[in-house]
């Protein structure tokens, strides 16, 4: 037990990496996913087809395969990445596909009449998106998006398999050194739980904040 506690700082370093991976993935996936989600909702046919194929394809493969492909596969065509970068790239690609669907669904939930009302007062397309569609769609966007963030935090444990020393791999290493599997896993479980529990608390707050928007 003491050995497990004394290795806490090492676990915290791992936690930091887990949080970094999660944060970077969420930021990239949200920005690119929302842009592509708008593209699949309003873009020209060719763009909608490309995004649709990308999204269906990526969502159809296990994320672990994607991680291995980016780290072990891409060097074959000359794209070499460090483990951390490869982890962030692979998880981002995976999450982008979810944010695309999430965005598309949220946009679709906005009554087309709101868009027309925006047109009728002379708002340009981007102004209609910013001032009308996005704020209304946000209510539908947030709950699955926060799930997605929580999934990213949990799913990031997979990056330990290509050697990123995140919380998961840090735990494994401490266990390898101390043979104290149970206490270390309990600490790890608690940390993962705290991350996701605070996310779900903030999601409830956000949902309550935007619940006033009715149609």
């Amino acid at each position, binding site marked *: 037990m003491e050995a497990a506690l004394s290795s806490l700082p090492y676990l915290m370093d791992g936690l930091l990496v887990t949080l970094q991976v999660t944060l970077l993935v969420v930021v990239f996936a949200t920005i690119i996913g929302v842009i592509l989600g708008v593209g699949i909702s309003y873009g020209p046919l060719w763009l909608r087809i490309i995004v649709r194929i990308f999204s269906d394809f990526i969502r159809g493969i296990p994320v672990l395969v994607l991680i291995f492909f980016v780290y072990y596969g891409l060097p074959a065509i000359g794209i070499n990445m460090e483990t951390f970068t490869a982890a962030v790239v692979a998880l981002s690609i995976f999450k982008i596909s979810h944010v695309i669907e999430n965005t598309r669904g949220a946009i679709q939930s906005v009554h087309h009449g709101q868009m027309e009302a925006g047109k009728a007062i*002379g708002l340009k397309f981007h102004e209609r998106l910013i001032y009308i569609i996005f704020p*209304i769609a946000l209510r539908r966007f947030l709950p699955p998006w926060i799930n997605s963030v929580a999934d990213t935090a949990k799913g990031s444990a997979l990056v330990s398999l290509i050697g990123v020393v995140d919380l998961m791999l840090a735990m494994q290493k401490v266990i390898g050194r101390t043979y104290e599997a149970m206490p270390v896993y309990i600490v790890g479980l608690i940390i993962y739980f705290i991350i996701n529990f605070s996310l779900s608390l903030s999601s409830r707050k956000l949902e309550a904040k935007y619940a006033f928007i009715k149609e």
Partner: protein
Amino acid sequence: MSHPLIQVKNLYKSFGDTEVLKGVSIDINRGEVVSIIGPSGSGKTTLLRCINVLTKYDKGSIKIDNVEIGYTSDDGKNRKERSENQLSEFRSELGMVFQLFYLFPHLTALENVMLGLRKVRKLSKVKATDQAKYWLQRVGLTEKINSLPSEMSGGQQQRVGIARAVAMDPKVLLLDEITSALDPELVGEVLEVVQKLVEDGMTMIIVTHEMSFAKDVSNRIVFMDEGKIEIDGTPSEIFDSKNERLNTFLARIKK
């Protein structure tokens, strides 16, 4: 000023295989109030939506202040559709009120009216607030300026819809069956607001099923049937008409 404000010439519009407008021509002069009546599916709403370029027309011409609105020239095979930004500019000069209000649900009454003033007219916050308040007061909603649409009755929402359109100071106000979705006891308060705008001299095209209202406020009434204008005349010409289709229609809606 010799030309009519709105000139619609030989307008055609199809949705897939269904031809909804089959050669509609009508002129609207400044200050005129024209009501369009007719059975559902006769093309009234489509005509209104074409005038606001919410729907693109296939053939024919719509000019506002002598400028073709949907395309770069009046007719011919080589004309091009106008860009979204050009359409936005045209639309900002035309006010539209919808059957189902379509207020922005995340904005208060005041913010609903202000949005166009701020972002399209580029007014300062102070000026936009003043104007929005003025129009909400004109439609009798001073008490409700900070309410969200979900906190208002249908009649109140529709009055916000009218305020949002007229606050932009449009050349013409297009009203698309604005009382059809309202409970009967709320129709009066909305029509009263329209009546006031008529007295202001606002040019209007009103698609409506409220015959007595159309009779009272209109300079002209247009009866549409099967994608064509059957009769275009003064209220008394319309209601004294011997036209069989018109009378069948009028008899049916009286029931």
